[in-house]
């Protein structure tokens, strides 16, 4: 099968360093997602694996063999592009059979294979159509089929869903998941959407400005972010981040912010005093109407979403402080009313001035 190793990969475009010293091992049959904001180097990395970009330095190995100097077509890979990149002048069937023609497969076999794959992605009714006549979702399925038919050991997917609307995106996301489970191949997936990363990945590689920030399973990334950037990037609504400082009084560590002050739980007992940021996810904030919580803040906005309600508070930070309540229990809270909020102590995060997580 296919094990992919990236060793000390560098890529510069003139003065711009797109990828810095990337080392990553991708196991066989894994679903790896490279995720990060624009400019983080995820697409460049994918293209280096494919062979469309040459690394400035470093090695790429597939199954132990160095492939830096191999043509894309000789690496045993398949790729699905963001713009699906179908051949506009060939019909769907011709698009799908293209890879097989390159392998000199005889015509009857090709027809059979094309039909098999078309059934797998459910586009048999489109085989005679031209790409221009297909919708966005259909086109992306054709692109998948075109790649599937050549049976690559590894699938590379470059933001395949970003040009689709939200509903289609969810449908095709499920499709990707299903294909991965059925085919048992390695999937390397690039996206800037943290939700896609969280739902699809076996392992997530978080990248930023050319560097790997954290590698881990979705659970790890979510509950153990290595720094403020990762904590902020994942989770929707985003984690609440409150600037303030750590002070020690009478042997107890406390966190002092503009609007409030609260004692820090046991694990932060040894935290160094000084400026820092406190983090807590909206879903881990407990809401008590009336009083009796760690802090009390007036409500600024109530957002009923159906399955949950969001409450916005002003905690003195740039962003509003958000708390989530399940269902529509809190929908009648009046704006301006004081609400007591409590924090699950195991879910508090502390970040220092560099954004690094303060570990316990």
């Amino acid at each position, binding site marked *: *099968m*296919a094990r992919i190793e990236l060793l000390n990969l560098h890529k510069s475009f003139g003065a711009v360093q797109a990828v810095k010293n990337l080392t990553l091992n991708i196991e066989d049959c894994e679903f790896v997602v490279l995720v990060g904001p624009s400019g983080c*180097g995820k697409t460049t990395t994918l293209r280096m694996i494919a*062979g469309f970009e*040459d690394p400035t330095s470093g090695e790429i190995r597939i199954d132990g063999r160095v492939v830096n100097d191999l*043509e894309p077509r000789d690496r045993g890979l398949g790729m699905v592009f963001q713009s699906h990149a179908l051949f506009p002048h060939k019909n769907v069937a011709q698009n799908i059979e293209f890879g097989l023609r390159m392998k000199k497969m005889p015509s009857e076999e090709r027809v059979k294979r094309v039909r098999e794959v078309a059934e797998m992605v459910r586009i048999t009714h489109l085989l005679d159509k031209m790409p221009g006549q297909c919708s966005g979702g259909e086109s992306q399925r054709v692109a998948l089929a075109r790649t599937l038919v050549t049976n690559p*050991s590894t699938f590379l997917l470059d933001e395949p869903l970003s040009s689709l609307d939200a509903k289609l995106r969810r449908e095709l996301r499920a499709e990707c998941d299903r294909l991965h489970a059925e085919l048992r*191949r390695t999937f390397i997936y690039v996206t800037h959407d943290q939700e896609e990363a969280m739902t699809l990945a076996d392992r997530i590689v978080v990248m930023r400005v050319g560097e790997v920030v954290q590698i881990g399973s979705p659970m790890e990334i979510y509950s153990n972010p290595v720094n403020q950037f990762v904590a902020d990037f994942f989770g929707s609504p985003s984690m609440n981040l409150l600037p303030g400082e750590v002070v020690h009084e009478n042997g107890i560590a406390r966190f002092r912010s503009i609007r409030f002050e609260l004692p820090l739980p046991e694990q932060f007992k040894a935290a160094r005093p000084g400026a820092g940021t406190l983090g807590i996810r909206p879903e881990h904030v407990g809401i008590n109407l009336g009083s009796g919580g760690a802090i009390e803040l007036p409500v600024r906005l109530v957002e009923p979403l159906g399955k949950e309600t969001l409450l916005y508070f002003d905690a003195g930070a740039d962003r509003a402080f958000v708390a989530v309540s399940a269902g529509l229990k809190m929908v009648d809270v009046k704006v301006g009313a004081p609400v007591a909020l409590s924090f699950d102590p195991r879910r508090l995060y502390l970040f220092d001035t560099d954004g690094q997580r303060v570990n316990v």
Partner: protein
Amino acid sequence: MAVATLPTAEMTAGKTSRAASRARAIKRFKLSLLLPLIVLFLLVLTPVLLLQLYFSFHQWTVYLSTWWDAEYVGFDLFHSVLTDPRFGWAALRSLAFAASSTIGCFVFGFILAYLMYKPFRGQSLYYIIFILPMLTVPVVVAYTAEMMLYRNGPINDAISRLLGVDFQASWLTNPHLALTTAALLEIWNWTPFSFIIMWAGLTSIPKEPIEAAEILGASKWRIFWEVQVPLLRPVILLALVLRFLEAMAEFPKTWALFQGGPGSATETLPVYIFMTTWQYFEISKGAAMSYIVIMLMIVIVLIAIHLLRREKCALDTMYQRRDEGEAVEV
């Protein structure tokens, strides 16, 4: 179903020819694309230029049997060309002809493009008629001109009727008028070229900034000068440069129609070189003249390249395009 795996090391030991080295394959591909150009240059252009260079330093007349017996004369030929007043006049005529016809083409082309770039009724019909002059063969223009411009011809007749006076200009035989006639013919022939380029430029300007300016109170005139013209600079420059260079090399209209005359009224550089080489058979002098003209054109061309590249650069930044579309979006 068999999986397309990467060939293992043992398997490819015997098949390295198939898994071609990427860097080498790219190099080979690039070279084969360039090959026709290189071949053409080496086999045709270079020998010809070298031969011309040889002749400009060696005196040869047709009476000599073989050309490699020509005697070396150093810079004498160049000297005689540069001190030849007739050459100077020819150069001046060429420049005057090229400059006036280029400006004429540009002005008319621009006016037409400006009047035509917004859709209106009958636009496509006008467009068709306006590009017709460019589709006439230049020699044909020359001979048709002769048919129309003789003293009692239709042009003079029509002008007489319009103005109510007896207009009998000798377009073709009056030495003072001949070069102007040639320039007018050139303008007629090539205005469509400038027209199309300007039209392309005008239609490519996005509507929104113009509409925004209108709502903000700018008059049509101001919009023209402050929004449209700056964005059209590269296109204007292109139209001017290309036309000027082609006009410097113009031959059919001056030769076929006038043969450089009457007298030497239309003796432009191409005509003079032609006459020197094929009527007076002074090959070497023609060669020296040619090289001087080449030098002149290279200077003009280098200036043109510099200006065009600068405009292209500005355009690239304006539209934030990267060279060759390299996606730096990672």
